[in-house]
């Protein structure tokens, strides 16, 4: 069932056991799992079926620190959430991403990759993915990894019909949960705002917050303030350890034979470090994206090399004449070290139309990340030399210690952390089952529970964790 307003939903007297806030990949997946298990669930979606400027305006906020995207652009507030602008790139966090790293404080998850493996067949079905091929080590330091560019499932389009016909799932559009109320043990209700007006309160036995990697923290911070700590009793880490995947062009490569690597449909290939290399250099994970360079770009690279290694440049010119696909740009995406200082705060001066304080995002890249970027490119370059696969040139701004460029991608629009998973209540918000510490009926879904980000796009892992949480909740409620 899909309703366009809370009033319309209220008229049908549907009694929900579980209230899911948000209809993005996490919310929709959890609701479908619960619905399939025969558990009545209501999904409250703040936006409507389509994009609107009025709805996006609720997402405005400010960023303090490094340059970042406008907060009302980097996510979407309508049915299907940010899956509506997702590029469809898929990969699951590696086993090593779940492990603590001695050289990076506050890393390590309370679960491992094995805990989400059983859900991957479901994830493949949801995201319409072929099987991943195993990673291919090309040296002791570098793995050639696969990142599948899937059809970019729009959750609203794919599942709207199924949800509309469902007897157990009710999706209520244009209904914004402005705050949760809690008594320090349980959430007792949600305050609603529907179609521009206060719509009273709503209650259910369980609440699952899936409003996105920025909004989850905002909602819980505001709710906790309004309930005097009754929603997140252990709130030291709430909003903190927020992470992105910074992305910058770090250099170029000239390959002896571009066909050495099986590239995808857009002529791209992806590389990541081995755990041994990360340990040895004490760096975070990273992903190097090799993108075919347009022809004019190749000539300038070779001209630059001619000043340093003329014979090598001559050889590359020869390669160029033989094969116009031999040069590539190197885009690097890396894992941020989790820092408590990278955090979501509530604005002291600005509120949205419903009176909820907007987000003030404090975000800054660290020195460890800068080193990860530089050493990562050196590792990749060294591997290409050792294997006689090609040569790498690292961008001047990196070798000269210059500032990050401001005219590039900046990051992946991947909002992670803020309600991270863990066992230490001072450094995490939810437990290994995504239940808020100290609360009996409050769970969190989505990438805000990530402890660390790995280097890959988060949607596949978000969906796997949502399958796991849906399964877990089904068992808890069914017991």
């Amino acid at each position, binding site marked *: 069932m899909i309703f366009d307003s809370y009033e319309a939903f209220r008229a049908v007297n549907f009694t929900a056991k579980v209230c899911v806030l948000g209809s993005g990949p996490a919310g929709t997946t959890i609701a479908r799992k619960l619905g399939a298990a025969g558990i009545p669930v209501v999904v409250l979606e703040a936006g409507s079926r389509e994009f609107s400027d009025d709805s996006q305006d609720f997402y405005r906020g400010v960023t303090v620190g490094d340059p970042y995207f406008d907060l009302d652009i980097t996510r979407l507030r309508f049915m299907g959430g940010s899956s509506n602008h997702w590029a469809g790139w898929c990969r699951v966090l590696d086993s090593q991403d779940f492990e603590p790293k001695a050289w990076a404080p506050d890393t390590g998850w309370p679960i491992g990759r094995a805990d989400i493996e059983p859900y991957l067949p479901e994830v493949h079905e949801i995201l319409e993915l072929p099987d991943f091929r195993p990673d291919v080590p090309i040296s002791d330091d570098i793995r050639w990894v696969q990142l599948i560019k899937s059809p970019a499932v729009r959750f609203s389009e794919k599942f709207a019909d199924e949800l509309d016909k469902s007897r157990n799932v009710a999706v209520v559009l244009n209904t914004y949960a402005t705050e949760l109320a809690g008594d320090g043990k349980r959430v007792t209700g949600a305050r609603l705002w529907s179609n521009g007006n206060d719509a009273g309160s709503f209650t259910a036995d369980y609440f699952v917050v899936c409003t996105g990697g920025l909004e989850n923290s905002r909602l819980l911070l505001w709710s906790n303030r309004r309930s005097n700590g009754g929603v997140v009793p252990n709130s030291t880490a709430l909003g903190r350890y927020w992470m992105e995947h910074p992305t910058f062009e770090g250099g170029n490569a000239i390959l002896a034979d571009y066909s050495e690597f099986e590239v995808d449909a857009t002529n791209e290939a992806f590389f990541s470090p081995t755990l041994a290399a990360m340990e040895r250099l004490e760096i975070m994970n990273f992903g190097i994206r090799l993108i075919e360079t347009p022809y004019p770009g190749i000539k300038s690279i070779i001209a630059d090399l001619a000043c*340093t290694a003329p*014979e*090598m440049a001559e050889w590359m010119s020869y390669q160029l004449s033989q094969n116009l696909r031999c040069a590539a740009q190197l885009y690097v995406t890396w894992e941020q070290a989790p820092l408590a200082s990278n955090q979501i705060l509530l604005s002291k001066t600005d509120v949205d139309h419903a009176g909820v304080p907007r987000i003030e995002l404090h975000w800054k890249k660290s020195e460890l990340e800068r080193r990860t970027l530089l050493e990562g490119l050196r590792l990749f370059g*060294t591997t290409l*030399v050792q294997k006689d696969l090609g040569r790498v*040139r*690292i961008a*001047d701004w990196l070798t000269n210690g210059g500032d990050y460029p401001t005219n590039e991608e900046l990051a992946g629009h991947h909002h992670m952390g803020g309600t991270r998973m863990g066992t230490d209540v001072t450094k995490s918000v939810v437990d290994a089952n995504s239940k808020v510490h100290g609360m009996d009926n409050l769970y969190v879904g989505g990438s805000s529970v990530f402890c660390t980000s790995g280097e890959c796009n988060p949607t596949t892992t978000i969906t796997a964790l949502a399958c796991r949480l849906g399964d877990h909740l089904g068992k808890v409620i069914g017991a």
Partner: protein
Amino acid sequence: MACLGEHVPFRERYAWIEALIERRVMSFFTRKISRRTIMQALIALPALSLFRKPPAADPDAIVEVNGWILKRSDLT
């Protein structure tokens, strides 16, 4: 000094000639080359190692030049 007919080893017999030559040679050096010059020559001796042929560099060694990650042999 040994007496006639007595057996004297050859080196001792002519030691006085040896001493005479040594004095003359040394006085030649001290007259023609100053002590300061000798000291300067001695000080300069270690610098001669610069003219020795260096050990062959590994052509496969990885080097980073102007941002390029290269093999040393790429630079020849």
